[in-house]
């Protein structure tokens, strides 16, 4: 028993170290050379005239923090969805909440009504969309007993949003279309320094709330019936899981656009690495693996930048998929 515990502690420390390392790498890798001085000054005694400090504060720091928060949030959401639906292929977007964000952002950017409502406006629109669709799913979760039916509702919401978006795309001008398409590619660089506070608070709240889900999640591996008979209030649990997922994935989508792959792959990776069904370990593990993964992806983007500009979504899948395949092959050989 202690061997496993030691093993777990070792991995946790290693991951924590990895995350911190990736964070600092992301801060300092790039075309413009920066120093620790720039970091310290840029954050605490900012002098706008110093280009180094400016780059650190306005570009690098927000980017790294966004990568960390987004990676952690999406991975945790993915884990919640996978356990809730007992399906290793579920991801944070399976309930269609991010489709709500996409739809409202599309309305904002494609109809020409508030085309210039970009930046802060886009974020607000994405939030509204997430809350609306999240609300519909939450309402449905109270009425619908079966998990599969709930999944279907999520899928249908996604389809409706997709259809509406396509219609909007057909009547949009080339410029509007381009702006919207760029949003759907996902970006870790759209957050401004002063937006980081709210972003961090929301994510932290969401992640901390997951602590109360550990017990029901652990029981849920036995199936809903058994979990219920072990004293878990299934309806409550479902409601709060969906609520937390909506908040976390909605926030990330609002600030970054839809980021693919992370929420799906990282929880599976965590399970394969830690070989446990204990969600206290899995949640922490997914959080750290997700954070460092997205940070490492961003470092790669920075390294490739002089040669070509790669969108985040492309790289997450390109890097992540081979790793997953490797692990699966290793496990089954």
């Amino acid at each position, binding site marked *: 028993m202690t061997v496993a515990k030691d093993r777990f502690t070792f991995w946790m420390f290693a991951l924590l170290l990895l995350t911190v390392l990736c964070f600092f790498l992301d801060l300092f890798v790039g075309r413009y050379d920066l120093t620790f001085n720039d970091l310290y000054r840029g954050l605490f005694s900012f002098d706008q005239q110093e280009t180094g400090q400016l780059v650190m504060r306005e570009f690098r720091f927000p980017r790294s923090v966004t990568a960390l928060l987004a990676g952690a949030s999406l991975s945790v959401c993915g884990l919640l969805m996978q356990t809730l639906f007992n399906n290793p292929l579920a991801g944070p977007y399976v309930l269609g909440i991010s489709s709500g964000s996409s739809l409202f952002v599309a309305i904002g950017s494609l109809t020409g009504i508030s085309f210039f409502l970009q930046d802060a406006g886009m974020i607000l629109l994405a939030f509204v969309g997430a809350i609306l669709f999240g609300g519909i799913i939450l309402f449905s979760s109270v009425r619908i007993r079966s998990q599969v039916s709930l999944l279907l509702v999520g899928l249908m919401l996604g389809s409706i949003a997709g259809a509406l978006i396509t219609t909007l795309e057909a009547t949009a001008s080339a410029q509007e279309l381009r702006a919207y398409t760029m949003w759907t590619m996902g970006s870790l660089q759209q957050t401004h320094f002063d937006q980081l506070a709210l972003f961090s608070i929301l994510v932290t709240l969401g992640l901390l709330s997951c602590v109360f889900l550990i017990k029901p999640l652990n029981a849920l591996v036995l199936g809903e019936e058994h979990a219920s008979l072990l*004293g878990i209030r299934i309806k409550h649990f479902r409601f709060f899981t969906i609520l937390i997922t909506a908040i976390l994935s909605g926030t990330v989508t609002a600030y970054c656009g839809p980021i693919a792959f992370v929420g799906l792959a990282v929880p599976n990776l965590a399970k394969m690495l830690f070989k446990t069904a204990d969600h*206290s370990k899995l949640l922490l593990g997914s959080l750290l693996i997700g954070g460092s993964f997205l940070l490492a992806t961003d470092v790669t983007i920075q390294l490739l930048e002089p040669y070509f500009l790669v969108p985040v979504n492309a790289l997450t899948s390109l890097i992540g998929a081979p790793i997953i395949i490797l692990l699966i092959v290793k496990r089954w050989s």
Partner: protein
Amino acid sequence: MISIQNTQFGYNAPILQVESLKIDNGTLTGLIGKNGSGKSTFLKTLCGLTPVLSGSIHIGGKALSHCSEKERSQLVAFVGSSQLAIPYLSVKEFVLLGRSPYTGVLGRYSTADELVADEMLSLFHLDHLRDRELAELSDGERQLAAFARAFAQETPVILMDEPTAFLDYGNKRSLLSVLKNATVESKKCVVISTHDLDLCLEEEISILGINQINKKTIFYPRGTTKEEMITQFF
């Protein structure tokens, strides 16, 4: 103990009726009936998973319909018929899950919980398997682990839906015997549904039968002969 008065069981229409039934502590009862006769429905209703159509059920003196999930989880434990081969879950962790009704909001297990789990593991002779993954065990061992979990829950009543269904004869026999001893020792009230009438008679446990014709249950205490039973419900 289990006490049922004038109750109708079923989903939309009544499948089964019980006028009056009392099952005492320290007894292992086999629930026998044809397929489709309502065994699963009966057990699920006794758990509280399905509501009764009419009437009342009392478990350990408390009315089932007035219990919250938590209270219920401390009164009734349930073992389903499907084999739970959950990846990455060790036997010890699996049995510990049975302590969930007694853990706090964060689900941490106290030393007392660990002790109970260890006790149950030895009761069912699983000490040597405690750190193995559930998926690695044989069917029989996995079933024993399920018993251990249910017992770890420390409820006065334990219900099991065809726990010996997928096992070979030797395993069935030993499992039933272990179960009977554990039941008597811990003075619990255990009801298992099964098809193996002969086995139940051999092990000398009481039988609860379901009559297809009048859709009522009949209770046969230990020692009733086979002939008497067969004429009644097969």
